[in-house]
């Protein structure tokens, strides 16, 4: 799974949040299936050249939120699917949508035109 994640230290989001979001995306998108093992914190940290505490924070949150499960002495795994996860599919888009709306407003593009544009591009 390491090849699917990357972090950008110059982005507006802290690194632990970028990791959190990307792992959620991998689970929701099905690249990571229930029961799949995650590499160790140290391995992920080495691969991304980031502080292991940062990785640990992201993983810890994902465990608390039920995305991952950790059993004593075993690797961290992707947890059973719950209904909460499918809701997440939509919420994952909020940030990108908010940015799009903000740009449309700055350019004075009305909501109806924006919806039409999305429809048009979707069907490309």
């Amino acid at each position, binding site marked *: 799974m390491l090849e699917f994640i990357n*972090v950008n*230290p*110059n*982005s*507006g*989001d*802290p*690194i*632990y949040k970028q990791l959190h979001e990307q792992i959620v995306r991998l689970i929701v998108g099905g690249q990571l299936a229930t029961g799949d093992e995650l590499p160790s914190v140290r391995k992920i*940290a*080495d691969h*991304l*050249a*980031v*502080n*292991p*505490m*940062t990785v640990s*924070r992201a993983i810890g949150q994902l465990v608390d939120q039920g995305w991952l499960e950790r059993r004593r002495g075993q690797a961290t795994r992707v947890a059973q699917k719950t209904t909460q996860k499918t809701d997440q599919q939509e919420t994952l888009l909020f940030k990108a949508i908010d940015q799009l709306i903000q740009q449309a407003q700055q350019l004075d593009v009305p909501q109806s035109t924006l919806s039409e544009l999305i429809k048009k591009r979707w069907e490309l």
Partner: protein
Amino acid sequence: MTQPLLSYKNVCKSYQQRQILNNVNLDIEPGMVVGLLGKNGAGKTTLLRNALGLLTPEQGSVHVFGEKSNELSAHNKTRIGYVAQQTFGYEGFKIADALALHRSFYPDWDEVLENKWLTRFELNPTTAINDLSIGQRQTLALIMAMAYRPKLLILDEPVASLDPIARREFMGDLFDLALDSDSGILFSSHITSDIERVASHIALIKDGELLIMDELDLIRDTVRKVSFADSRVDLSAYKVLNKQPNSAIIYGYTGQDIAGSIAINALSLEQLFVELHG
């Protein structure tokens, strides 16, 4: 509570009538990797040199392992690693001879680690120090400061001349030191993307004053730039780091509405740095 490895208390220092450090309070605990961020001339190097007892504060105190930094015992001196901005010394030595001399000062020196690093960074022991590039000298200085796994590691602009691959590998070594040996690391840098990757904590220094010292993630999560049309906007619930006629940088934001604000934006470390000096 554990004793901090390094502790600054109300430290003031001036040089030729100019105040360089103004009432700095800062504790470095085991496991912390603290990125010291500030402009040229903000007082970073002075702060670091005070920890080594190379400078003595006019007011306040600096303690390392519980001892005053300018009265450190010989034993405690062997538990500190330091890489200065400008190295070097050992001119006229070969790498192997310089390392042999350096090693003799440190009882806990790990030769296996030394050899691993020499191989990894492609340093040939028979090369003369004078023939090394700046980046190679910096690498050797890092090996000399880290091969005895110091409990406290102080680095003044450590990676500026290293190539990106060497920098990445060096970062991994820093984490090993902080987490496996429970050491504390204080390093200064202008490279905000490096700090963002490496640091667990950030200490931001401006004009000799420590503006913030906290967990990096906490700073990133709660620092915001607030824009407004009317400068009478009420920001008393937050720590205001910088205020301009139409915007302010606040710390401690947790998602509330701010009456009278036009926009509330998160900042990357680099943006924060630039905004604070605007």
